[in-house]
């Protein structure tokens, strides 16, 4: 199978490329014109990775690079900057990618979405959270990341609805991994203070190498539905979270132990604030904003109720569909994953040496 991967040098992409190669596939890594490819070096040395250079937000290089592939894995997204930077990189980039795919008759897409597009405020705390959860339809009150990913999802759905096209949408929870151990579901920066919001909530986290396993399986089963565990995955949305999700306190405590003596984990100084207190403060701030400022004030995310819910509300997250539809199970437990984060191992080399998961 020939797989076209965008965002290939990124935090997730480097592991996805290695996993696809380890599973026996040929990969084209689509990379920006001047981006270094050091993160792919081990995979490139296998001889099964071709680097194609271009620019998603303008479409540069896409048409030439795209033809002859079986499946696209679209990981590229802009996570920083203002709304317009994110829109150009994430939404227009996806539009250009899918237009080129259509022109090149590449019809199979593993579309990477996010938990951020879910409408958390609409669900009761403590309820089961799976793929049936409602998604955001009005991005007001949510951040630019959510809004642009929401538009990106619409493009995915449009592509998948075209005759002859096949699409599976993967929604990972908060992905952690080497260099990204301290994640936004633990709290938020508020000037000089880092607020750790909540302690007993079990956030929907998933280790990056487990995500790579799932994405590779999704590409394989989309392309070869006969081999899929329970049937064709075309059109499915699949959430990814690890097994045995830790509470925020459990996660931070494990990280704290590993951070001692580690030069790779940066551990911010923080103040703990209960979720209920932060939610009440955000609701009060919103009420003042609406009554006094007619809703015109732009408040930091930790002072917006919808964003507090999206990041810190407690649910029971399910990964049953990922397990049944993909035959996936998280290869690495939290303890092993965190140890891999702080180790000096070449993780790509490990992946290339490890067998594919049995479906």
């Amino acid at each position, binding site marked *: 199978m020939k797989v076209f991967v965008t965002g290939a040098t990124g935090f997730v992409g480097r592991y996805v490329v290695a996993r696809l190669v380890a599973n026996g596939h040929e990969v084209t890594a689509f990379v*920006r*014109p*001047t*981006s270094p490819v050091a993160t792919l070096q081990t995979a490139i040395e296998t001889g099964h990775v071709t680097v194609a250079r271009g*620019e998603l*937000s*303008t479409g540069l290089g896409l048409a030439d690079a795209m033809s002859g592939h079986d499946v696209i894995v679209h990981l590229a997204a802009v996570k*920083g*900057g*203002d*709304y*317009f*930077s994110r*829109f150009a990189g994430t*939404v*227009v980039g996806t*539009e250009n990618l899918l237009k080129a795919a259509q022109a090149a008759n590449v019809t199979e897409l593993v579309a990477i979405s996010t938990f951020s597009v879910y409408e958390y405020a609409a669900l009761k705390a403590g309820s089961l959270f799976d793929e049936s959860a409602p998604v955001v339809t009005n991005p007001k009150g949510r951040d630019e990341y959510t809004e642009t990913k929401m*538009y990106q999802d619409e*493009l995915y759905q449009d592509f998948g609805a075209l005759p002859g096209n096949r699409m599976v949408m993967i929604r990972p929870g908060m992905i952690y991994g080497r260099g990204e151990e301290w994640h936004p579901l633990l709290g938020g920066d508020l000037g000089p203070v880092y607020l750790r919001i909540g302690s007993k909530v079990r956030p929907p986290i998933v280790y990056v190498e487990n995500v790579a396993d799932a994405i590779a399986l999704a590409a394989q089963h989309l392309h070869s539905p006969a081999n899929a565990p329970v049937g064709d995955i075309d059109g499915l949305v699949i959430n990814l979270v690890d097994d045995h999700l830790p509470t925020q306190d459990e996660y931070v405590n494990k990280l704290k132990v590993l951070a001692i003596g580690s030069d790779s984990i940066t551990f911010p100084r923080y103040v703990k604030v209960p979720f209920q207190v932060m939610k009440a403060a955000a609701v009060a701030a919103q009420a003042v904003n609406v009554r006094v*400022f007619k809703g*015109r*004030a*732009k*408040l930091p995310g930790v002072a917006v109720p919808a964003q507090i819910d999206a990041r810190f509300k407690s649910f029971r997250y399910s990964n049953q569909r990922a397990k049944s539809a993909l035959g996936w199970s998280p290869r690495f437990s939290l303890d092993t994953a965190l140890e891999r984060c702080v180790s000096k191992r070449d993780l790509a080399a490990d992946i290339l040496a490890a067998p594919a998961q049995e479906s």
Partner: protein
Amino acid sequence: MPLNQSDRPLRAAVIGTGAISAQHLAFLSSSPRANLVGVCDLSPVSAKVAARRHDAGGSFTDAAAMLDIVNADVVHILTPPNSHGFLARMALDHGAHVICEKPMTATSDEAVALLNHASLAKRHLVENHNYRFNDDVVTMHDNRVAGTIGTVREVEIRMALPVRDPKGRFADENLPNAIHKMPAGVIHDVLTHMVYLLDHLSDHATWDTVSATWSNHGGGDLFKVDDLDTVLVGHHANGSVHGRLRFSAQTSPDSFGIIVRGSEGQMSTDLFHPFLDIRKARAVGSQLTPIANHVVNGASLARAGFRNFGQKLLQHSPYHGLARFLDETYTAFAAGTTPPVTPRDIITAAQLIDRMVGQMRLTQGATQ
């Protein structure tokens, strides 16, 4: 006969949905003077999302098709500068007034040609000079006209922006910004603002000598220049006047400073960190005037601190002048009167940029 003598809002169409479109579209979707009938962008999703966010009548990917359909009274051209001429002519030929983002053209000759086209079409063509309509600039201008600081003798405009920031929109080697192809390179993006403010606050001086030093301190191929220091000497109806235009990419914080010095006082502000400092003769005698100025301006600075915090919270950004500019321009279009930014203003700014660009010596590193 004016285009619109009734009270009906003018039918507005927008071409281009980049960052500056947020300000235009926010005005168009909230002003009673405008009815947003169409948004156009080459990217279908960009046009569709912008139309959805701002309740536009429709979204289009072909400007000519949009203009054929929506019967716009006013067209906003918000695309990269190299497309302005073509699109402005198209909109004028469709019978619409045009509001064009700066820089409207690369040269003054092109600006004159485009304005002539508008004149023949009996429509207005207006370049966005939004900072002229910012609160503090309006106050400074009113004070200048009122003679608060006597006769204007010096105007200094200084802008500092981190255009070399690797995460910024100008330094991305993977996605070269179209502005780099303009005669003044990346500085062309803000130079129009600087020169129209110089003209506006200098009592429309005529500049007899212009000495521009362009530098490329950061080097490399993407940036043509990243620094400008221009000294001007000229005159207006009441005598001589000096000017200075300074752009820096090496200093911080971001700033857009304006100092106007007159024969009897001076005024200063920073449009990115707004405050207004006016030093003038006070009615307490010459001995106590310095103290009075310190007290008054100290209080003004303290008030500005609180006001700026509130304005940041309420998103009253340095772009706030754009809504006032558009409101006055739409009012003029509807009434059939002269818009606040005239062809003379546009050509004067473009000609001064031409003179500065004419002194550019293109060698690498710090140079003239």
